[in-house]
């Protein structure tokens, strides 16, 4: 493999991996606080992608209830992306209220909440299909105006071409990641969130309204899911209502690989899986979807707690 090809694969891997990372952080934040995998995350990812599509003013297909409908506005793509993510964040709030809080206030088994979130995920996907049909969608061409379709990261004699979309995806993911890092580590709210994650009872004893912070976690998680849905849609198109389900499973591989509930772990896991996928040779491309799980298998054999996860210590 030539060094320019290598660099190209690395850049592509980082771009896709950075989306895996912010998507997986949506799982991680909720898991770190509630110790529950939120199975609606994949559906919220899909919702975000569809919402962005609608906000650009693009028309829906002819199959669903909203056949041929289009919003009477044409937001620039960046605003549509933010709007789609906000829509996903609001969806996160509704999911928390409907599927999580009622069970939590009754002190139900976490397993029930898991099933409840799975049920909501299935319902959401079906609502999407009912409304918009099962067809694939793709965002309007050149969403960022007159940018060239690829950028050269090499020299003119030895070009390293990377699709502009990948560069944008990487940039957006990094901005989101930076904002989240600042929020979690340098603000009062972030420290309170970490306190709730570490020990909910102690957090309440310090006067932290844990219900409100759990809701905030769902807002952030939904936002991250929505942004990643749009970014993946931008890269490969929206493959239909089930678009988020396969991606959701990959996200699970990312968080288990990095260490459940660990924020840096989700980032490392996401980048690693993105890189591993991009190094699958073209003739074996059909096996690419298996790579994250193969990697997960190997890592778990060696480190059952994940790459950065803490080994479970029994409290005395």
């Amino acid at each position: 493999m030539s060094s320019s090809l290598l660099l190209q694969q690395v850049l592509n891997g980082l771009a896709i991996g950075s989306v895996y990372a912010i998507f997986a952080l949506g799982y991680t934040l909720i898991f770190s606080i509630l110790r529950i995998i939120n199975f609606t995350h994949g559906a919220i990812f899909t919702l975000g992608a569809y919402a962005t599509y609608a906000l650009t003013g693009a028309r829906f297909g002819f199959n669903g209830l909203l056949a041929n409908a289009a919003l009477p506005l044409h937001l620039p793509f960046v605003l549509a992306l933010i709007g789609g993510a906000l829509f996903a964040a609001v969806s996160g709030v509704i999911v928390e209220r409907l599927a999580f809080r009622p069970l939590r206030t009754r002190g139900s088994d976490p397993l029930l909440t898991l099933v409840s979130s799975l049920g909501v995920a299935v319902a959401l996907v079906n609502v999407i299909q009912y409304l918009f049909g099962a067809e694939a969608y793709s965002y309007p061409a050149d969403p960022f105006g007159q940018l060239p379709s690829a950028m050269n990261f090499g020299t003119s004699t030895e070009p390293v071409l990377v699709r502009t979309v990948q560069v944008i995806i990487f940039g957006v993911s990094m901005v989101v990641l930076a904002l989240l890092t600042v929020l979690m580590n340098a603000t009062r709210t972030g420290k309170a969130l970490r306190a709730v994650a570490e020990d909910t009872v102690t957090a309440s004893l310090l006067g932290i309204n844990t219900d409100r912070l759990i809701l905030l976690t769902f807002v952030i998680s939904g936002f991250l899911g929505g942004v990643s849905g749009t970014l993946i849609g931008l890269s490969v198109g929206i493959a239909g209502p089930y678009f988020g389900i396969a991606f959701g499973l990959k996200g699970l591989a990312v968080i288990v690989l990095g260490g459940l509930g660990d924020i840096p772990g989700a980032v490392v896991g996401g980048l690693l899986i993105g890189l591993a996928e991009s190094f699958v040779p073209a003739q074996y491309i059909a096996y690419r979807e298996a790579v994250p799980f193969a990697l997960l298998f190997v890592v778990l054999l060696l480190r059952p707690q994940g790459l950065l996860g803490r080994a479970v210590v029994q409290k005395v």
Partner: protein
Amino acid sequence: MSAGATPAPLLALDDLSIHYGRVQALEHVSLDVRAGEVVTLIGANGAGKSTTLRSISRIVPIHRGRIAFDGRDISGVRPSDAVRMGIAQVPEGRRMLARQSVLDNLLLGAYTRSDSAGIQADVERQFVRFPRLAERRRQLAGTLSGGEQQMLAIARALMSRPRLLLLDEPSLGLAPLIVRGIFDIIRELHAAGVTILLVEQNASLALQIADRAYVLEAGRLTISGHAAELLTDERVRRAYLG
């Protein structure tokens, strides 16, 4: 106790009953704490002492009876509102936020406040009271020794400027010398006018420091009175003072 002229208590539990599933944890418990007092609740392991404090902090549901703080019924408020109203708890086992620094633990103790200048001044005040914490302000709380963690737990609770401080087993698992230091601090807080409800297994230490005491046995209050009297009470001596 003089009748009639006593002011309304700061804290009053009235006929409080709590159960966990089918296990009765507290039955018909009524007690009160007046402003400026140190009141201790002693009893064997599992008698319901911690449950009493957890109910006052509103982290366990109440099945019967009511809790009044400063004349207001707080039986239905959230834990965070209880802190906001002036009730802080130093929980059993100290419950550090082990992955945050000493300083961040203190700042989170002031989560209900928004006067940043006052918070800053109070942080410095805690560092004067507990010089060991000042030396370790950047360290993760999980790396502190047991005694230091207990100091941090007390300092953190004080950061909310409580009107009532609930202390749950502050001597638990600490060396005698450290325990003496912790009780000196409780005495200082008492002298400074802080109202304290102290739960302790070490009954003799608790009775020496307290104004009044209640004895809890299997979820029911059995004996109450001035701490000095309980120290010489034959039943208390036999059961708790050895």
